[in-house]
């Protein structure tokens, strides 16, 4: 039997590569720890000494501002030294392999790697080759997973809804290309959400997506009816140029989240988005800035959740 490469011999978290296959207790431990880090971010000195003397390397092989920044802030609030690697100007462009890059950085006494890569599985490859005391966090790999985004999303849901067991949650948009959607679906189902819906056009829905335990809707109005949480996905601009979608305007008319469509959800439903948003493409500004939007709190909670993940990993030796 293939064991989970993220877990140590005693079931402790060694790396965070994907939410898939993690026990519910591990997810709860991360969310509970994040809650106590939220109180740290509210005080005068927003730092704790847990990662003093440790070095966290942000390895971003794919551009990202928000995720890299929130990882950097999280590591700094844990008192770690943070090194950001701008891969566009690094030796990778000179032909160094991924594992050589990582071996060199390990020789500089890295304690933790935060990895974003366009290829699915790149963080797994790194985790398999680093020394046992080094921890790897996946900050988004290809179409595969973005586990800290999934965790901050379920943290946000728990903050506003209290409990997962009575919720209906809809994930809307380009599920096919979305590592965020995959991580969200795994996190929601592990935590016991009884009904997870995915809504989007057939061209942007993975084959056999039902096998993940979700209900599929191609009609936005039907899918939104009675939901407690609406999780929007970003529609990547490059999808517009291909054959998958006619145009941004056409997409907005069919799947854009407008106040009229949101009114079909429960009156206390919350609206989430992982950012960056395309206003007028997947979401109307009136919704993005409206009373039911929790998009900015998601960003704030993201720091506490990433602090929790790093602290738990560092504490596991």
């Amino acid at each position: 039997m293939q064991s989970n490469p993220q877990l140590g011999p005693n079931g402790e978290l060694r790396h965070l590569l994907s939410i898939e296959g993690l026990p519910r207790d591990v997810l709860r431990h991360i969310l509970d720890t994040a809650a106590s880090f939220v109180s740290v971010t509210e005080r005068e000195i927003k730092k704790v000494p847990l990662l003093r003397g440790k070095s966290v390397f942000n390895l971003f092989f794919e551009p990202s501002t928000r995720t890299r920044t929130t990882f950097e802030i999280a590591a700094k609030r844990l008192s770690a030294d943070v090194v950001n690697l701008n891969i566009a100007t690094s030796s990778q462009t000179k032909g160094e392999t991924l594992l050589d890059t990582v071996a060199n950085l390990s020789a500089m006494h890295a304690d933790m790697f935060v990895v974003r890569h366009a290829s699915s599985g790149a963080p797994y490859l790194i985790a398999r080759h680093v020394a046992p005391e080094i921890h790897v966090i996946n900050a988004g790999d290809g179409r595969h997973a973005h586990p800290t985004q999934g965790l901050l999303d379920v943290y946000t849901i728990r903050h506003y809804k209290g409990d997962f067991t009575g919720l209906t949650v809809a994930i809307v948009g380009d599920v096919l290309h979305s590592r965020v959607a995959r991580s969200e679906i795994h996190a929601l189902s592990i935590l016991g959400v009884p009904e997870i819906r995915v809504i989007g056009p057939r061209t942007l829905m993975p084959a056999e997506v039902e096998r993940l335990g979700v209900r599929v809707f191609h009609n936005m109005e039907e899918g939104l009816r009675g939901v407690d949480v609406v999780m929007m996905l970003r529609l990547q601009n490059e999808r517009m140029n291909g054959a998958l979608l006619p145009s941004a305007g056409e997409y907005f008319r069919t799947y854009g989240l407008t106040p009229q469509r949101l009114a079909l959800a429960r009156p206390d439903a919350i609206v989430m988005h992982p950012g960056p948003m395309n206003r007028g493409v997947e979401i109307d500004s009136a919704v993005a800035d409206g009373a039911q939007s929790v998009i900015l709190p998601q960003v704030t909670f993201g720091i506490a959740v990433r602090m929790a993940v790093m602290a738990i990993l560092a504490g596991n030796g």
Partner: protein
Amino acid sequence: MLLPDAESLLEQLAERMRGALPPGTGLVGIHTGGVWVAERLHRALGLDVPLGTLDVAFYRDDFHKRGLKSGVQSSRLPFDVAERDIVLVDDILYTGRTTRAALNLLFDYGRPGRVRLAALLDRGGRQLPVCPQFVGGVIDMPAQGPMIVLHRSDEGRLSLALEGAAGTAADPVSR
């Protein structure tokens, strides 16, 4: 070994603190047992300033050996720490390492005017220069002896119990 009655220790401690806390004193319990003791003291002494609570998990000096346990609580100080008289409250005072961690955590909220320490029971075995101003009682326990743990019943009654071993090699029954 016969342990003292926690409820009597609490009465003693409250008696010793009565009249010694100037107006505006902030009482701060250290999770978990210290918060139970602080809640009772806060009521018994009729203090106006709301109770503060600290969880020192993020400040422990053995984090790299033990990691982060589940069940870390949020620290809450519902008052301004700057220049305030503070009394930290713990249940069992032992090595002094929890007090050290609590002081570091407290100072990240601001610079208090004065900090004093109250403990339900002082069992000796200090590894740091920490000295309590208020104690409910003192017993002399071997440094590697069993842990003394505070329990709270559903009705809120406090009691002490011996659990496992504090030391390592010195204790043959530790499993």
